[in-house]
C-alpha cells in the first residue's frame, strides 16, 4: 500500500462522512458547509490523480461559486425545524436496499465483463494548455452550444425579472 493509496482512502472516507452529514443535518447552513467539505475532498482527489486543473476548477466553481450562492440564500431564510414525519425510516431502508442492489449488480457486471476494471486507475497528468487545446479543437461545437444555452437562460431570467418589475410599477401608477 503506497502513501498515495493511504491518502486516497483518508480523503474518500472524509468525503463519504461529510456527504452523509450533509444529507442528514436539519440545519441548512450546516448541511451546506458539509457539502463544501465534500467538494473540497473531491478537489483533493483530482489533485491526487494528477489533474490540478480539474481540482482547482472544482474548488472555484462548486465550492467557491455555487455553494456560496446556496449559503447566501439559506442564510437569509429563517429556518424552522421541520416536523418529524411518522415513520420515515421505512422509506429510507427501501430506497437504500434498491440502490444497494443496483450498485452491487453494476460493480459485479463490470468486474466480470472487463478484466481491466480490477486494476487501479492510472494517474494521468494533463497540463491546462493540453486540456484547453483538446476541449476547443475536438468539442468546440458542444461548448458553443452550451454557452448559447446559458446565455438564453440568462436572458430569460432577466426578462422574467423585468416583467415582474414592470407589473409592479404599472400597479403603482394605477393607484
Amino acid at each position, binding site marked *: 500500500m503506497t502513501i498515495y493509496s493511504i491518502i486516497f482512502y483518508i480523503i474518500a472516507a472524509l468525503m463519504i462522512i461529510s456527504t452523509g452529514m450533509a444529507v442528514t443535518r436539519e440545519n441548512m*447552513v450546516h448541511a451546506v*458547509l458539509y457539502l*463544501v467539505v465534500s467538494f473540497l475532498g473531491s478537489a483533493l482527489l483530482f489533485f491526487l490523480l494528477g489533474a*490540478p*486543473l480539474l481540482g*482547482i*476548477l472544482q*474548488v*472555484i466553481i462548486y*465550492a*467557491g*461559486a455555487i455553494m*456560496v*450562492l446556496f*449559503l*447566501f440564500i439559506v*442564510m*437569509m431564510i429563517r429556518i424552522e425545524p421541520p416536523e418529524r414525519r411518522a415513520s420515515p425510516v421505512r422509506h429510507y431502508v427501501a430506497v437504500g436496499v434498491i440502490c444497494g442492489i443496483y450498485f452491487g449488480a453494476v460493480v459485479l457486471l463490470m468486474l466480470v465483463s472487463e478484466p481491466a476494471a480490477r486494476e487501479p486507475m492510472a494517474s494521468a497528468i494533463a*497540463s*491546462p*494548455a493540453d486540456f484547453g487545446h483538446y476541449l476547443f479543437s475536438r468539442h468546440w461545437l458542444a461548448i458553443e452550444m452550451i454557452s448559447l444555452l446559458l446565455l438564453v437562460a440568462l436572458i430569460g431570467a432577466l426578462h422574467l425579472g423585468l416583467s415582474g418589475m414592470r407589473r409592479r410599477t404599472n400597479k403603482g401608477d394605477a393607484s
Partner: protein
Amino acid sequence: MWLWTLGYFILMAKITLVLTVVLLLAAYLVLVERKLLGRFQARIGPNRAGIFGILQPIADGIKLLVKEDVVLDGAERGIFQLAPVIVASMALLTFAIIPFGKPIIIGGHEIPMVISDINVGLLYAFALTSLSVYGVALGGWASNSKYALLGGIRGAAQMISYELALGLSIVPVVMMAGSFSLVEIVNAQAKWPFIIVQPLAFIIFFISALAESKRIPFDMPEAEAELGAGYHIEYSGMRFGLFFLGEYVQMQVLGALIAVFFLGGWRGPFLPGPIWLLIKIIGFSIIMVWIRATLPRFRYDQLMTLGWKILIPAALINIVITGVFIVAF
C-alpha cells in the same frame, strides 16, 4: 533519501521566511496606516509606544492575545470560531505561489525562489479568494446579530460580484504570458512589464481587487456609520485579531498579485528580487491607505453598477481586443 530530506528542509525554510516577512509586514502596515491616516487628517498618529510609535504593533498584539475571547450565547459556537480562521488562512495561503526572486543555483541544483510553482497558480489564487467569502458570510451569520448578518450578506454579494471582474481582467495577461503559472507570468515580463501593454486590465484588476479586500471606498460590509463594524462586530480578542490580520495580509496579497501580473514581479534594476517585490507591495499598500484617506464610501447600488455594468463589460472588451492583437501580430 538525503536529497529528499534536504529538499524538505529548504521548503520549510522558505515557508518560515515568507510567513515571518508577511506577518511582520502585516503588523507594521497597521502602524503605517494609522500614522499616514493621522498625517492625512492633520493629526500625529500613534506615538506613545517607543520612538515614532514603533512598538505599537507589539503592544496591539499583546492586547489582542490577552483579551477575553467572548462567544455569545446565541451564536453558533463552532462556525463562529471557524470564520476568522478561514479569512486569515486563505489570505496567508496565497503567498505560497508568489515568486520572490531569481532561482538560486547551489551545487548544480536549482532552488526556485517560490514556495510552490504549480501550473495552475493563478487559478489557485482565485480559488482562495472565492473560499474566503465563506469567512465573511459565516462570521456574519454565526454571530446571530442583525448588524453582523447584514454585513455578512453585503460582503458575500460584493465579493461574488467583483470576483468575476477580477477573473476576467486577468485573462489578457494569461493570453500574453501563455501560462497560468505565476513564475512563467513573471518570466514573460522580462522585456517590459505588462502594465505598459495592458493599462485597462490593470485598472480593472486594481479596482476589483480593492473591492475584494473590502476597504474604503468599498467597505460596505463594515460601514461603521450604519452597521457598527459589520460581520465582525461580535468578535473580541484574537478572533477579531484574525479578521484584522486577514485584512492586512489581503492588502499585501493584492500588492503582490499586482506586482506579479503587471509590474514584472521581482524584476527590477540594481536591487535584488525580494527587495523589489517588497518595494512594490509596500508601495501599493501605501496607495491603498491614501485612497482610504481620500474617498468616501460607495452607495450599494453604485457598487453593483460599477461592478456589473462597467468593469465586467470593459474586461470582456479588453479580452477581445487583446485576442485580435495577438492573432494579428
